[in-house]
């Protein structure tokens, strides 16, 4: 099976240059051909496993746990760009005023 590297890269938000495409195409295609072996198995009457030890509906009391809350200073400690108590992010909408 041959995969469309450009399409997957776009879906995954992974920057890929044109000269990386042939190698990635080869690697991803061989991996996807390999995982395709599962199609040999009939699983029509098999349930999915999402949680392997069988725990269900794990909840905690609905109250604030102060000891596990970061202060604004701690939360911003590693931010590449910040201002006052805010993270600076890329603009989502351009301001055309």
């Amino acid at each position, binding site marked *: 099976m041959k995969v469309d590297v450009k399409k997957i890269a776009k879906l995954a938000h992974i920057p890929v240059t044109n000269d990386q495409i042939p190698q990635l195409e080869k690697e*991803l295609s061989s991996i996807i051909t390999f995982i395709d072996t599962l199609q040999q198995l009939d*699983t029509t009457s098999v349930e999915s496993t999402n949680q392997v030890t069988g725990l269900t509906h794990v909840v*905690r009391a609905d109250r604030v746990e102060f000891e596990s809350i970061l202060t604004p200073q701690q939360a911003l400690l590693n*931010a590449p760009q910040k201002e006052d108590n805010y993270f600076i992010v890329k603009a989502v909408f351009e301001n055309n005023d």
Partner: protein
Amino acid sequence: MINIADLTIQKAQDLLKSKQVSAVELAESCINNITQHNPTLNAVLTVNASAIEDAKEADSLIASDSSIFEQKPLLGIPLLHKDVYSTKDLRTTAASKVLEAYIPPYDATVVKKLNEAGVITLGKTNLDAWAHGSSGENSDFGATKNPYDLQRTPGGSSSGSAAALPAGMCLVSTGTDTGGSIRLPAAFCNLVGLKPTYGRVSRYGIIAMGSSFDSIGHFTKTVTDSAKVLSVTAGLDRHDGTTVPHTPPQYHENLGSGTSLKGKKIGIVREFDHEGTDRAIAQVTRNAIKTIESLGAEVVDVSLPHAQYAIATYYILIPAEVSSNLGRMTGTRFGKGYEAFGDEAKRRIMIGAYTLSAGYYDAYYNKALKVRTLIKQDFDTVFENVDALLCPVSPSTPFKLGEKANDPLAMYLSDIFVAPMNLAGVPALSVPAGSVNGLPVGIQFVSKHFDEENLYKIAYAYEQARGNIEGLNNLSF
């Protein structure tokens, strides 16, 4: 300087309690070995500058309170953490350029528990970036070398944690086992490596790879040492909803006399005995089977018919979970953005995006969740009849660095004997079993969910009967 490479936690505790050695001496000896051998081995990424201060505090506690070891069972024991464990104020990189300068503002639960138990954290160890790999070669900071042969891999992804112990850099190191990342390097470096049951040890604060798989374990030289550490790390954590409520036992106090396996039934997995395995390794496994038979265990043939699908299932589910977990690395709150990911992280994110995309989701992701059920049922069925399984860990001895580096699929297949346990969530313990051409070979014992106590008893009995491992290369650094 004390010889750390030949020392166990158990022996160090005797020496600390009888005041024949101090916590400072232990820490200094380890740091000395790091300084001397790390330029060759590349096992450690960051050294904790306050380690000696911490050891001094441990020594003053030991001097002032003779019962202190009851409250702090690992007091003064030097430790290294795999660099995916969040350590407050100590750089944590996941061996990725993305987190090159990341300083966690909090401790992982396990880090906190080990600190409370008195360990001296010496630093952080190298790994395949984000724990993606089986050889350590995917580290953005260079590959770690195997101390028994510098041309070869120490195994991955917990490569630095495994290489550090034979090199005398610590007495215990932590790791994560998502698809074999503790057991494979343990087998390659002549160590005991525990993959606990999924949910036995908290994942909180440990940088996630595959959240439905990640198992938080450790490396030691002996089974007793491994049990001592699990007695500290196991248990319920309200910050991790997958941890279970029942209180874990004190594993190290329940190892038994270690002389008999009478009444124990041990399964040998038919499907793991195939021509793809190195003959000499298969012989090591057969010798281990003879040893447990001589201890009175009943050995029976068992089948895991779906184990052959484990790697394919794993490489659908893991990339799917990886693509979701690494989606947070946007470079806004911490670290750099997607452009800083290495090749293997990129491959996994892209495979995950592919198998989760519209039109493919049912064929891949949902299919794999169902095959996971079949694999888990195989284990459930065999554990109705046997107390544990004895299996090989790796089909080959430690391979040469570079040998599989350009073939991702060949690298994935290094984990054929270790990944099935992660799909089923069962615990497994890798134990040294012999050597081939001077290189270490391990076996693993596997048991049903939350039965680590039984696992340790069987492995302890085997370890006592096995004796010393002969024929290993001299450490070569």
